[in-house]
């Protein structure tokens, strides 16, 4: 278990900067998920931390110690990758044992260490097998076991569930958190799957354009995304975005959607008159009867999504909105007319030009 600090890490290649000043402080034992679209430098960041590449600028500190001049194999790091990267000529046992053998532990200690972690990952039955004899799921567990076996201070996991099928990915997502906690390692976990990120992370660091745009606990990222881009990366279906110009209405501030005035609360007074984007998540839209305060809409189609029902709606002024509700609830009739309510506390406002979320004054909506 170790405290990890990244201070201003930058790295560029001939075709341009990939990482552009990345800083982060992870507590000992914390699980930080590095999340972002593909090609944003997530893997590169792990390689800089591991010492596989040198940073152009900035430094990595483990428990306060600068790692710049420490060789990769002395940094106390365990790694697992999406392509498993097992040694093909070695059995699963020897693969898992490799970090222990490198430390010249006694054979009995190695056997104990391998068997303990293999039991946790449910691969104790296949330890004698060569990698080519293992299923993808077993390979991935073997790679994780190897990363965990050395009880590393830092565990770097590069999208380890990417290449396993959906069912196994789901099961591993449920089983991983206790395993990672038990390891005691400080974990950096890279993924492109927002559900995996939310499920595993103590905090999520959203990497876009070579920088961390937001570093926060999953719930905060989901409810209070810093930018439109972050908002769109979390949630299925994606957040609804509507171009609005907030205006004063009575004592508060409101927006007009269709012919309906939707109050968004006084805390957004500063946004009145500005070009904004209103963000509302599908599960924060209630479908009800046509009524004076509700936004009139036509039901275009109802499309079930796993345990939920997703309804595509069209407002009088042509906005397409998605609403999501538990599958057990009554579905709206296709082609019927309905009234929509936006849950007031869940309304987000973004600046249309910069994409930055507009913070409500006096803390409301930002707590």
């Amino acid at each position, binding site marked *: 278990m170790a405290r990890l600090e990244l201070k201003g890490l930058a790295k560029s290649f001939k075709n341009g900067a990939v990482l552009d000043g990345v800083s982060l402080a992870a507590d000992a034992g914390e699980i930080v998920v590095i999340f972002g679209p593909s090609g944003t430098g997530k893997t590169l960041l792990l390689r800089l931390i591991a010492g596989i590449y040198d940073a152009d600028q900035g430094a990595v500190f483990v428990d306060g110690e600068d790692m710049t001049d420490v060789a990769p194999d002395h940094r106390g790091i365990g790694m697992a990758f999406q392509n498993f990267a097992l040694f093909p000529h070695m059995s699963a046992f020897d693969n898992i044992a490799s970090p222990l053998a490198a430390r010249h532990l006694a054979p009995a200690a190695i056997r104990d260490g391998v068997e303990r972690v293999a039991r946790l990952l449910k691969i104790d039955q296949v330890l004698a097998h060569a990698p080519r004899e293992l299923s993808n799921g077993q390979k991935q567990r073997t790679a994780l076991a190897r990363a965990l076996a050395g009880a590393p201070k830092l565990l770097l996991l590069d999208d380890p569930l990417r290449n396993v099928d*959906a*069912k196994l990915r*789901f*099961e591993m*997502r*449920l*089983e991983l*958190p*206790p395993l990672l906690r038990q390891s005691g390692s400080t974990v950096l976990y890279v993924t492109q799957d927002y*559900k995996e990120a*939310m*499920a595993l992370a103590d905090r999520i660091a959203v990497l876009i354009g070579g920088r961390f745009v937001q570093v926060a606990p*999953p*719930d905060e990222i*989901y409810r209070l995304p810093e930018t439109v881009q972050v908002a*769109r990366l*979390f*949630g*299925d*279906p*994606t957040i609804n975005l509507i171009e609005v110009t907030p205006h004063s209405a009575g004592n508060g501030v409101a927006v007009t959607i269709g012919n309906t005035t939707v109050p968004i609360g006084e805390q957004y007074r500063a946004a009145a008159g500005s070009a904004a984007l209103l963000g509302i*998540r*599908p*599960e924060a839209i209630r479908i009800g009867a046509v009524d004076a305060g509700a936004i009139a809409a036509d039901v*275009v*189609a109802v*499309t*079930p*999504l*796993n*345990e*939920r029902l*997703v*309804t*595509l709606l069209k407002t009088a002024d042509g906005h*397409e909105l*998605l609403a*999501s509700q*538990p*599958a*057990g609830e009554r579905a709206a009739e*296709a082609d019927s007319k309905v009234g929509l309510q936006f849950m007031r506390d869940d309304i987000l406002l973004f600046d249309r030009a910069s994409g930055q979320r507009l913070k409500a004054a006096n803390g409301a909506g930002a707590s």
Partner: protein
Amino acid sequence: MSAADVLSLDAVDKVYRPRRREPVHAVKGLSMEVRPGETVALLGSSGCGKTSTLRMIAGFEAVTNGAIAIKGRPIHQLPPAKRNVAMAFEGYSLYPPLTVRDNIAFALKSARLPKAEEGRRVQDVAALLEITDILDRYPSSISGGQQQRASLGRALVREADLYLLDEPMGQLEPQLRAILRGRLKHYLRERRMTSVLVTHDQTEANALADRIAVMEGGVLQQIATPRELKERPANLFVGTFIGEPPMNVLETRPEQANGRIRFAIAGGQAFDYAESEVAPPLRAALAARAAVTLGIRPHAIHLGQPRLRARVLSNQWLGDQTHVAAEIAGRLIVAVAHQRVAARVGEEIPFDVAASDLHLFDSQSGAVIAHGGRPT
């Protein structure tokens, strides 16, 4: 088979005979009907026979045995062009020398529409599929996902008896996917178009289809509405294949005594119900059985209500739903809730499942015994 069906398959077999290798029986005795205006999805994992079926309907593969009819007319010996079927599939690609616009318009030529009407239909379908900005591009200069949508557009504008769509939304980014699914479903319904779509993605099948045909090993397992598949799966395969997160499965030993019916699991616990909670014929069906496989949907597990206990392994809030994993008798069970759940990792929590939410399967064959405490 009824004359009113748009498509009917009657005991269709497909056997591939590769040289110097064992024959492959890809589709086995498949019979099904598609009714006017209906969208049916063929769903299964790779190798289940769904794509072979689609290709036989389209005419790209010969039928080994059986018959296929469209609107009552046998078509399985006709060339593809004589079947009056519109297709969007991989390998049935866009014409490279034509722009996306001309590719789509070409499909309208035989309808001999006025120029303005032709242009309007192309615009409409392009707007629907978000490909308006690439209408003047050539197929080689657009992405795979855009080609797929252009090909879908070309199929949708045609007048045809039947529309065959292969993974129509396959490569779509999540931001667009939900909206395009809704629009496509509306488009098909509004025009009363009859379609068969093939997919390995159950979320796509559930979103778009009126009925889903679940295939496995070349055999049709069940054809039913998405809701029926969830509530009344025909066997354990369908039960565990359909649903995300998947159905929980537990091996149990049924016991009947003192006015109670118990499904005992390893470790001494049991799903324990008063006889009155369970329909009488089911009691009879259980009497002769030493073992029964219980299937329980994740949303049917009510955490915090007493009946059984499990140890919480993880509690994951995903923004609009919670997935709680817990261990009982060495097995992982998963519960889904639509709000946050106060369950701490490592603690033992009570949970309940209503007798009406139990699915019972034969432990050997996987055949269904009963749904919801009522025999089938």
